[in-house]
């Protein structure tokens, strides 16, 4: 009843090709942005910001990055964690070489390093497909991880082998390092995520996005229609790695403050992949939903026993969380293999015809 598009007509191709052609969607997105930019900053406590919202946004961005590659261009990657790491180490090196340059600028620049490395590891994708490609990206994952440990230059020869983020100010406000308030970091992360998500959405609805989807859906037909497979795939690898790189840099600069090579391990790659699959391959909104599910659900689960006043040892909660998350992953794959994005669409469809069943 509330979600009906009847009576909304488009009179131009411009209107028809906008990101949110339906009015209710436009209102919905405006409300979400309002919540993100106004309501949450006004009401949330530090824990909610630092342990829920900031990681959620960082992961959302990383999931968008992987979704560009896997969901839109159809190239399976298990190396997104390492590409995030490249971004993080690049940003760290940049800020130690240019301490006075705006840190957000450096974070955005660091993505280019990640993009270059991503493109290099994307080269075999011309000949290798599917699970075989997954092995290539695994090689990237393990090799890069090894580099993070073995090239001390990357971490400025710190005895600890880790990178630690110094304090950096922007317009008189501390945005990175331990002194940065959760709110300042939240705004930085939110702004970067929203802007990149918007730009990616633009790319995806135009020629380049279409060429990725062509490669994904039927690579031979795409090639016979004039799409150069190597360039197109490499561009997808580059863009995807850029986004992952920025997400990785944000992860250490605005969330964790310090990172070891193991922060960017295969586990992270899997986490991101889960977000993409559960959220929905080929859906930007799904990336956010997937990130919310994979990151926030375990945090929720941790608190449930405490809320109900049940005294369960911490490790049992952890075991149960693992089991529940694993079971839910299987459950959702069975219920809707196309992810939350599809569930959301089904939900919208139900709303559209409500109160009638069909």
């Amino acid at each position, binding site marked *: 009843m509330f979600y009906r598009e009847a009576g909304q007509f488009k009179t131009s*191709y*411009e209107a028809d*090709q906008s990101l949110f052609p339906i009015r209710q969607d436009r209102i919905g997105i405006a409300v979400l942005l309002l919540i993100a930019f106004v309501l949450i900053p006004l009401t949330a406590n530090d824990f909610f910001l630092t342990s829920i919202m900031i990681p959620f946004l960082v992961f959302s961005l990383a999931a968008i990055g992987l979704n560009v590659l896997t969901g839109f261009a159809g190239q399976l990657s298990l190396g997104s964690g390492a590409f995030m790491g490249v971004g993080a180490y690049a940003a760290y090196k940049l800020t130690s070489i240019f301490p006075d340059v705006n840190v957000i600028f450096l974070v955005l620049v660091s993505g280019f390093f990640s993009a270059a490395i991503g493109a290099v590891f994307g080269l075999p994708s011309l000949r290798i497909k599917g699970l075989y490609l997954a092995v290539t990206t695994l090689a990237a994952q393990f090799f890069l991880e090894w580099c993070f440990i073995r090239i001390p230059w990357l971490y400025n020869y710190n005895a600890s082998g880790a990178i630690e983020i110094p304090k950096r100010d922007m317009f008189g406000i501390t945005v990175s390092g331990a002194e940065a308030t959760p709110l300042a970091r939240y705004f930085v992360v939110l702004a970067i995520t929203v802007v990149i998500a918007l*730009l990616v959405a*633009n*790319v995806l*609805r*135009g*020629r*380049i*996005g*279409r*060429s990725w*989807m*062509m490669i*994904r*859906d*039927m690579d*031979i*037909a*795409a*090639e*016979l*229609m*004039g*799409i*150069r*497979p190597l360039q197109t795939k490499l*561009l997808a690898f580059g863009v995807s790695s850029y986004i992952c790189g920025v997400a990785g840099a944000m992860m250490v600069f605005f969330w964790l403050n310090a990172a070891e090579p193991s922060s960017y391990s295969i586990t992270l790659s899997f986490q991101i992949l889960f977000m993409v699959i559960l959220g929905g391959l*080929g859906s930007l909104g799904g990336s956010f939903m997937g990130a919310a599910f994979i990151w926030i659900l375990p945090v929720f689960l941790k608190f449930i026993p405490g809320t109900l006043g049940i005294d369960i040892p911490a490790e049992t909660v952890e075991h149960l969380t693992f089991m529940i998350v694993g079971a839910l992953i299987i459950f959702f794959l069975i219920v809707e293999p196309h992810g939350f994005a599809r569930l959301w669409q089904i939900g919208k469809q139900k709303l559209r015809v409500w109160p009638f069943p069909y």
Partner: protein
Amino acid sequence: MNAIMTSEEMPQVAAPTAEREDLLRVDNVSLSFGGVKAITDISFDIKKGEIRAIIGPNGAGKTSMLNVINGFYHPQVGTITWQGQVRRKMKPYEAASQGIARTFQNVALFRGMTTLDNIMSGRSLKMRKNFFWQMMWYGPAREEEIEHRKKVEEIIDFLEIQAIRKTPVGRLPYGLQKRVELGRALAMEPDLLLLDEPMAGMNLEEKADMSRFILDVNQEFGTTIALIEHDMGVVMDLSDRVVVLDYGKKIADGPPEEVQASQAVIDAYLGVSH
């Protein structure tokens, strides 16, 4: 097939085919896969503006021939001359930029995309705006998008598929998918359009529609068409000239009536009812 015969859109050949300019020549082409010969020493030409049919029983090498023209397979022997120039070994995507478009035997649409996007994908080569403008969207990228959208809408109107514009092609019935595939190839505004069994699996009515579209394309846009088809009625009605393959060899070449009368062709098709 009489429905088409009596149609007013019967091909009215402007000039005798033989006098027209060659668009594509295939000379002594042979192709084999690890010892298995798919095509043996085949030569024929496609003239500008004609509808050229390639026929033959299953496994005769028809699709392989299209793949060779397309640049998807590389013949071991022989030359291909495109618009007067001998073509070197090239990548499939280069064929597209030279103006060769095609449809596929088994529908090869981009299943995850809508009809509109599928046809828009045919415009890929004609769109130039770089990554930066794409990212910004507002401005040049959008203008370009809308300019091409207008072209695509013309094709949608032409093929009468307005109602399924926003439908993901995976959900369309087979006949419509074939039509969308034709639209996608048309969006490339090709010089040569290769159609691989455009009417396979269609009912009579759909075949009639498709035949009409093919003739319209040939006449209105002047597009040269090479098509593979099993339905002899359609082939005889549509095409200007027919080349017949059997076991990878050419067994006949000429106007439909001539070919139909050829003993070699009758032998090759013996037992196949048409």
